[in-house]
């Protein structure tokens, strides 16, 4: 049973990719994901400036998932070089650098800087609010996404570009198509859903200090499955299916919807770093039981 997967020119020994924003802040933590069976890893999103993020509570575990408003805390792209050099030194599997902009032009600037450090791919986090356009997310607007992707493609050379889309868009497949037409090499879907809110009824206060937060984990899996299904109908580039995947069967399900690879985020909360090994094993057990020798025959079979 081979879990080998190819995506945007990258060869992965497992389709499982650590999602951005989950433990991916340093080379040693990414290495630990590799040791536990990840096929590739994504660094936490890097932006134009150092940011401390929102005040705690920023991440809360709910019964069926997680709500978070970390607030894109990061060291700023000018301070990330040494960490990326360290990653290149100790990691054997491919690594993806996720970037976000506060303004449209930030993506190009940051991508040019990051591309020079030669990551295996660059993820474009377009789910953050656009400060130029009344705070609504770039990812809601196909034209803006298209502009960001083509801007970045102009400066990134041969490094694959993977926009990560938000399920808040009511036409996520059209946005994916716009990204593909602009030169995107793959699509990552989905980012957190919502936003949602949790109130402590004893103090009548929203529990997140930022009040609202993105939802992830098992409660959003059906949304992720639907989004990947819709995108698969519209585009030919491969999809990294992300959102509430915590078991081998979840992974199989999102691949049947059309994903080539599978993003792993909240599962790290449920099972620790061992989540990768656990899901790999469960996928192989399912494949054996159903006579699949590799993942190619599985992809998108829920269509048609």
């Amino acid at each position, binding site marked *: 049973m081979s879990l080998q997967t190819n995506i945007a020119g990258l060869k992965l020994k497992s389709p499982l990719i650590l999602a951005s924003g989950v433990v991916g802040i340093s080379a040693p933590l990414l290495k630990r994901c590799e040791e536990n069976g990840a096929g590739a890893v994504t660094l936490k999103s890097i932006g134009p400036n150092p940011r401390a993020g929102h005040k*705690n509570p*920023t*991440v809360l575990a709910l019964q069926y998932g997680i709500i978070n408003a970390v607030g894109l805390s990061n060291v700023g792209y000018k301070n990330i070089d040494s960490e990326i050099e360290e990653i290149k030194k100790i990691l054997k599997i491919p690594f993806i650098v996720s970037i976000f902009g506060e303004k449209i032009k930030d993506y190009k600037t940051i991508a040019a800087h990051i591309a020079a450090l030669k990551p295996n791919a660059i993820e474009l986090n377009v789910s953050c609010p656009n400060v130029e356009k009344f705070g609504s997310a770039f990812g809601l607007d196909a034209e803006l996404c298209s502009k960001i992707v083509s801007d970045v493609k102009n400066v990134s050379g041969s490094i694959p570009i993977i926009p990560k889309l938000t399920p808040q868009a009511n036409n996520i497949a059209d946005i994916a198509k716009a990204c593909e037409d602009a030169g995107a090499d793959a699509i990552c879907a989905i980012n957190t859903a919502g936003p949602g809110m949790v109130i402590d009824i004893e103090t009548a206060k929203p529990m997140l200090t930022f009040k609202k937060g993105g939802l992830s984990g098992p409660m959003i899996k059906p949304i992720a499955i639907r989004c990947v299904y819709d995108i698969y109908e519209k585009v030919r580039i491969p999809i990294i299916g992300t959102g509430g995947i915590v078991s081998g069967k979840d992974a199989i399900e999102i691949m049947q919807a059309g994903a080539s690879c599978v993003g792993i985020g909240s599962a790290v909360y449920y099972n620790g770093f061992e989540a990768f090994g656990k899901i790999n094993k469960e996928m192989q057990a399912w494949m054996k039981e159903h006579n699949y020798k590799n993942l190619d025959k599985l992809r998108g079979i829920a269509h048609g």
Partner: protein
Amino acid sequence: MVKEKKSNEKDFGKELNPQAGYSNSIKDFHSVKLTKIIEENPNIKTFYFDKQIDAKPGQFIMLWLPGVNEKPFAFSNLGKNCSITVQKRGPFTEELFKSRKGTILGIRGPFGKGFETKGAKNAAIIAGGCGIAPLKPLAEELKKNKSKIYVSLGVRNKEYLFFKKEFKKLSNELKIFSEDGSVGKKGYPTEALEEFIKSKRIDCVFACGPEILLKKVFDICEKRKINCQLSLERYVKCAIGICGQCAIDDQLVCRDGPIFSNEKLRRLKELGKFSRNAEGKKSCL
């Protein structure tokens, strides 16, 4: 026609409401009321809660001041009258110091791994500053296990000392150090560790406090081949092992720790050297 089974429905409802009939509630969250606030000294207060939250010595909780922030603390008393003992240090603790009996706060936790007290016959406890607080319930557990307990506490000056009476009662021997000599001996609590090791057949060292102190404790224990368990501190955000903010090398202090022993400590290159701020930027300790 198939008759629906009532019991199935009931099971489904149970699945939905495992925590006191509140669906999709926050895991390990406790709404608590302050029942008592004790001033230990001008800088340090103990806050007692109205709920028993079962924790092991060394585990930590996230204390939520609604609308303000949420920070990690360890219990200074466990069981029915659980409490935290806090030193005024910044905006969060200043806000906490304003709260009164009856104030409602939130607690998430307990999180992390606690101290392992089994097998410690002659235990040394080394604490610096606020690190004194979580080691009191540890001493209580060691005492229950009939371990002999040798304690060395270090503080900046006499205004920062607390729990002296309690440790006097719990320990077989208590040494106190202060940086300016205003209480106990002038110096650092590690000075007594060497002495304890030489004369008391110490088989386990427990420590909590500034990381420079902990590194010193670790170095002494390594040299003498003695087990140690250190309580490490990093900037904690999520407390559930997902945001990565509290990393020390490839370990997450919130989930793999906060208590670490020799084997893991040996691998930590950042111990006593670097930590990360809220942005994730690495800086020298």
